[in-house]
């Protein structure tokens, strides 16, 4: 038996409720679940408000650096640095090279 378009359509839709009551009940179920919907401008308003709140939270967050008076300088480190600068090692090397 060679199927035609009608056979195929029938096969695909077999099981469709034939009772009008089914369709009325389905429609009633759908209608009872229609909730209030937001207007598009209200949706965009909510998105903008959320973005502003996020930006404010990022900008106004407390800094991770410690606040208050700075700690005293490390005098030992400063002295070592001055010593290295005064050594002027490159100049000494040039003198040694010239004496050869």
């Amino acid at each position, binding site marked *: *038996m060679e*199927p035609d*378009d009608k*056979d*195929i*359509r*029938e*096969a*695909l*839709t*077999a*099981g*469709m*409720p*034939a009772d009008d009551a089914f*369709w009325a009940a*389905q*429609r009633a*179920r*759908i*209608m009872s*679940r*229609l*909730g209030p*919907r937001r*207007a*598009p401008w209200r949706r965009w308003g909510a998105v903008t408000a959320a973005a502003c709140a996020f930006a404010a939270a990022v900008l106004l967050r407390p800094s991770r650096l410690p606040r208050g008076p700075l700690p005293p300088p490390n005098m030992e480190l400063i002295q070592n640095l001055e010593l290295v600068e005064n050594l002027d090692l490159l100049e000494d090397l040039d003198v040694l090279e010239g004496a050869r």
Partner: protein
Amino acid sequence: MEREWVRAAQSGDEAAFGRLVGLHQKALFAFLLGMTRRTDAADDLAQEAFLKAWKALPGFKGESAFRTWLFQIALNLARSWGRRPKWLTFFSGGGEDTPSGDWLEARPDTGSDADPGRAADRDDLRRRIDAGLARLSSREREAFVLKYVEDMKISEVAAVMGAAEGTVKSHLFHAAQKMRAYLERTDGAR
């Protein structure tokens, strides 16, 4: 008339939306039944599609027909349903989600043949078409169901599927080839 209902529903007229539901609910159910092969799933997804349409209606620009837009929503839902984990079937009311002969036998014969032999032939053909459908890829099945159940033009099938017309033609060609091959093979096996 439909355009007026759509416009009224967009501005919140529930009665107008109810008329749109009445106009499209059978076609949408038939499409979802073809896609899911389960009446309970078709019913759930059809309701879900209408509720999504209601919420999204203010943003509907009318660039396509309302039916096309509604079927796009339904197709997306059907695709998600198809991708759901199999274990969910257990909680959603049974494991009859494969298009097997058992599933078909549970359905009433909607035909009107007085001849029992002819009715049996047609029933057998239905069973084979149903099983053949399971052998199609998901995109082939979508195109096949939209074309044969809804009798949509290629351009509308393409719009619903979000595919090029050439792609839809290719899906339909392969679907028909596979279906014909399967029917011929099973015809000899009876």
